[in-house]
């Protein structure tokens, strides 16, 4: 008996809910406050600064350290057209005088 009445209440409440909600004008979207970047901002900013510093140091490194990366200098060429460079490597296919 009581169970039946509870079902009756539920059905009635459902009808009333449907009726009241159907008449409501619900905003389609909600404006979310600006998303915080959590801890990434605290990591990314110093990391970017460190990378920038390293790049700067690399570009403006002391001149003597650049010798390790110098291109071979052609000092002579033999009759066959082969180029002779300082370290004895034959770069004829690349450079010919």
């Amino acid at each position: 008996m009581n169970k039946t009445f509870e079902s009756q209440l539920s059905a009635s409440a459902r009808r009333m809910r449907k009726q009241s909600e159907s008449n409501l004008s619900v905003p389609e979207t909600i404006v979310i406050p600006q998303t915080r970047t959590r801890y990434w901002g605290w990591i990314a900013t110093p990391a970017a600064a460190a990378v920038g510093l390293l790049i700067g140091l690399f570009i403006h490194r002391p001149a003597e350290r650049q010798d390790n990366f110098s291109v071979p200098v052609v000092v002579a060429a033999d009759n066959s057209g082969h180029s002779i460079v300082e370290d004895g490597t034959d770069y004829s296919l690349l450079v010919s005088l």
Partner: protein
Amino acid sequence: MIALIVNYKSLSDGQLMERVRRKDDENAFAEIYRRYARLLQGFFFRRLGGDEEQSADHMQDTFLKVWSSRWQYSDGQPFRTWIFSIAYNLCKNTYRQNKHEQEYLDSFPIDEPISEDSTPLKLDAATFDSALQQELARLNEAQQMLFELRFTQELTVPEIAAIIDIPEGTVKSRLNTLTNYLRLKLKDYE
């Protein structure tokens, strides 16, 4: 580059909320809003005296609270209970602001006289709804809230207990009293 397309509509409330919490996923939040906005606005509309503007404001406040408290949501926690707890507390604060706190009483005015000579009425749904609506209007805020959660939102006793933050036994007892009261009042419409 593999693009991952997430079908938000196929995700459960809990899965959506997990994405909101872990990834600040605004699309997941939008899907939650799509599912619950009307339901919550209706809840506030009925609980706050039919003020549509206020109910829309409260509904949006609830969602802002969900967003700002997303860290507090724990995996596996029933989402419906969680969001209704927020809505319930907002309602309670409004009642307090409106100085209706005293309406949070447990007693029911069940000793009101009921006319013995009331003639049986035609039992159609509309008549029952109308009579029920009248009786609900006479209940205090706490009783109306209980009815709303149990019968309108169709929440279970454990869910209601978690939302109102009272023991399940108390919820059962209050529901029993409420149902008996309404049954007595609406006996002609059964």
